[in-house]
């Protein structure tokens, strides 16, 4: 992500820094790449807990909650289409938002955000050096 602050931090002549798509394991505490968490709340005792489950890297599948909590049905559909995590036992895992023939899982970090690729970042421009100072002309 181009750093929005600090003039000196990025040198316009250098090629734009590659967004680091290297997966850092478990920022929020899990071991594998993907981690599913669900929040359950008891309305009478006002207690809510978040349950986390690591999903295997090679085969991201997990059991579905939709028969216990019907409200989870839509959440699981959205999670499936955004991250590609399978939910076995789910009645119909159709796409929630994306068109049916959309391939790729948008919310994964390695999925490019096209809006930012198309237009050059206006912040990359920098006030060029003094014309007389040094020879290499940056403009």
């Amino acid at each position, binding site marked *: 992500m181009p750093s*929005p*602050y600090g003039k000196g931090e990025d040198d316009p002549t250098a090629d734009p820094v590659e967004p680091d798509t290297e997966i850092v394991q478990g920022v929020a505490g899990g071991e594998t790449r993907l981690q599913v968490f669900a929040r359950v709340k008891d309305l009478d005792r006002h207690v809510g807990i978040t349950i986390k489950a690591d999903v295997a890297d090679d085969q991201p599948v997990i059991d579905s909650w939709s028969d216990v909590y019907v409200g989870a049905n839509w959440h699981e559909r959205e999670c499936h289409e955004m991250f590609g995590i399978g939910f076995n036992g789910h009645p119909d895992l159709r796409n929630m938002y994306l068109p049916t023939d959309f391939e790729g899982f948008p919310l994964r970090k390695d999925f490019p955000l096209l809006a930012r690729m198309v*237009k050059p970042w*206006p*912040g990359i421009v920098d*006030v060029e050096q*003094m014309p007389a100072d040094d020879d290499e002309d940056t403009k």
Partner: protein
Amino acid sequence: MAKPKVPGVFKGMGITLGIFARTVTKGANTVQYPREKETPPVRARGVIALHQDNCTSCMLCVRSCPDWCIYIEGHKQLAPPRRAGGKPRQVNHLDRFDIDYALCMYCGICVEVCPFDALFWSPEFEYSEPRIADLLHDKSKLSEWMETVPEAPELETGAQKK
């Protein structure tokens, strides 16, 4: 309530008649726009005005704009020294400062992040254009907006100056 229970149906009709009478006597709440104009509050975020001399083209606003709609180009040049006989100062001269109001979402991050107070909000809102390309206001247009920038309103009692 003490008065007899008027069936809701007629009470509803009574209310519409009441509003009818109030509008006929006291006039409507609507503003006939082209003739009467409602003045927006002092802090309204209508358009961004640029104070050119303050701007040192430090690119902070460009980088912190979420919509990438500010374009700045400038170059360094020598300016006369402040004190006589001093070394000529290196100054960033502003060549181009455009804000594309077709993209801008009026979030105000640029005005807030500018360290040299070069950008100001003005509640002006009547600058629509038939052609969308004209919404790209250049440096001179932005400086024109400077006159419409109001004084900062004093704050509520109990506010502490930052």
